[in-house]
């Protein structure tokens, strides 16, 4: 009997972990593209917030979730365009610009939210779990894997697609070269600037999608600072995953597990540790991860450096 209880607990835990990992999966896979091309975007947090807000606003206006997701992606990419202009075209310091965009993302979304939505307090319809015949009814696996909404399922597709594009297409090869030997790409007649813009746009589009998931597939409201550091955690995920999309998928799942554990243990009355310890878990694990899995060798060699044509 006891075993049955812990098994249900485990199934719920795994299901929640995947759900909570979803924004991280999108954002970190996007950041893999960006960093593979040599662009470190610490403005991910602000970008996700913009995605979350745009997704919420679009869905609140139209009631259409796919449209909301598209708006989230578009908002993220628009923000990414600003980042790309400053870091790639003007060659400004990527960290400084990223810090500015985090402030902007936090400020703009909070400003617009307080101006237009905060007094209404209205929630939106969010994406509902999709019941898959037979699979969802499986004893343990059903609860753990097959009672998610479509956005959560799509993370698998995005991870596989990202890996295929990055490793099996000429676009991916060139993109990776831009982060390692931009001069070689330049000499071969392709545009380093163009590829870096593309990489940043893919990255910020996915970050926007990750943010939009928070308002359209998880909570039904926008809250100021709803991302609560996920953009920064995604940066650490990329390091742990050694700049691989599939790796980013699984590392994000691990972080999703920390989030899920925190939430589920908080709900257990018998737990003696203060809930703040659990609350701090994802942040502490991020630091532990960075220290334990430092993969300096795997980092793109031109990460963070603007390309100077000579």
């Amino acid at each position, binding site marked *: 009997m006891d075993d049955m209880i812990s098994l249900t607990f485990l199934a719920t835990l795994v299901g929640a972990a995947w759900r909570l990992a979803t924004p991280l999966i999108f954002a970190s896979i996007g950041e893999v593209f960006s960093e593979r091309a040599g662009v470190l975007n610490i403005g991910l947090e602000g970008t996700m917030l913009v995605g979350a807000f745009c997704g919420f606003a679009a869905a609140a206006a139209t009631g259409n979730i796919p449209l909301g997701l598209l708006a989230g992606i578009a908002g993220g990419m628009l923000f990414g365009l600003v980042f790309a202009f400053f870091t790639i075209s003007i060659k400004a310091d990527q960290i400084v610009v990223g810090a500015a965009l985090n402030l902007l993302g936090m400020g703009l979304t909070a400003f*617009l939210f307080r101006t237009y939505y905060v007094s209404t307090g209205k929630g939106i319809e969010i994406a509902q779990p999709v019941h898959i015949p037979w699979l969802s009814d499986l004893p343990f696996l059903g609860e753990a894997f097959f009672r998610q909404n479509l956005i959560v399922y799509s993370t698998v597709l995005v991870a596989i697609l990202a890996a295929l594009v990055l490793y099996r297409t000429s676009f991916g090869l060139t993109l990776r070269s831009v982060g390692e030997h931009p001069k070689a790409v330049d000499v071969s007649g392709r545009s380093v600037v163009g590829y870096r813009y593309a990489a940043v746009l893919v990255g910020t589009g996915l970050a926007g999608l990750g943010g939009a998931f928070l308002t359209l597939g998880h909570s039904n409201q926008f809250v100021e600072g709803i991302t609560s550091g996920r953009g920064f955690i995604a940066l650490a995920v990329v390091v742990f995953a050694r700049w691989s999309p599939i790796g980013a998928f699984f590392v994000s799942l691990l972080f999703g597990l920390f989030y899920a554990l925190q939430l589920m243990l908080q709900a257990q009355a018998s737990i003696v540790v203060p809930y*703040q310890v659990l609350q701090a878990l994802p942040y502490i694990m*991020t*630091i532990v991860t960075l220290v334990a899995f430092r993969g300096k060798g795997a980092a793109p060699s031109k990460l963070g450096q603007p390309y100077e044509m000579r």
Partner: protein
Amino acid sequence: MAEINQGVRETVNSQAAQAFYRTLSQAAISALAPIAAVLVALAFGALLLWLNGFNGSDVVTVMVFGSFQDMRSVGEILLKATPLILIGAGLCVAFRCSIWNIGAEGQLYVGAIAATLVGTSIDGLSVWVHAPLVMLAGALAGAAWAGIAGYLKVRFQASEIVTTIMLNYIALILTSYLVTGPMRDASAAYPQSARLVREAWTPRLVSDLRLHIGILVAVVLAVALYIFLRRSSRGFALRVVGLNPHAARYAGMNVARNVMIAMCISGAMAGLAGAFEVAGVTRRLYQNISPGYGFEGIAVALLAGNNPLAAILSGGLFATLRSGSEVLQITSQVPQVLVLVIQGIVILSVVAFAKLRDILRTVA
């Protein structure tokens, strides 16, 4: 012979004049760029207000000038400038060493926690001992918290950007734990610590204003850090490490030690700011003692061009805008978070104008 001498003298004179002219124009451009950056940000703020149905000109009339009403309101601006100058000047040192300490907010909180512990647990000391002791505790705690990220960077090459941000969240959660748990004042309805004993309070500058001596400490420390960076050999080493760690190592400098020092100085300044918030303003520890001073300090340092002396001015400016935004929220219901947008645009404009200046220099 005389003619040649004359010619040489003229050449030298004209060269000196040119050099003088060049320095002057560069100085003018250096001073103009931050001013232009602020104007661009204010214009953007006005546009944002106007687009959303507010009165755009409020940005100038209320946000910039609205908070200069009387002695009290000027005192409030200086009160807000205190943590901004402390944190901004400290971050100048870190940024000069290319250490991206984004964790001033957390360092401020840890400083506030330490100050509260020292200010509530000891009793019977003279104000001449207790008040400085509280400040020292805050600075040390901030330095230690920043030191964690510094150590992880030099020992494990863990990115200080990520670790300092994670330490921000951890410090905030720690504060929340302490004021709802072990440090909670049981008699209060709202989660808060006990009140600091009177001798631990930061002395006020003028008896009927909230303004305390922290503003003087902030200015003195900013000047001291300026001299440290410019005139001391340690400051020189920090800047060399920031410009080129490989060259610094080749020149026999200890990169790791310099990184730790830069990190700890910026952490100490933020921790001191936290101590002043508790001992000089709130007298108790709360969950939200800082409205984001630690993040605003980044904008302060960048607008100052990482010059601690200029951070006094940019800290004052951001404090003015923050006070003004409070007035604006009360008078016209404009969300106060507008300051975050303006901070972000200030940073972007500073970056853009710095590039413009480089282009102008190469053209000239």
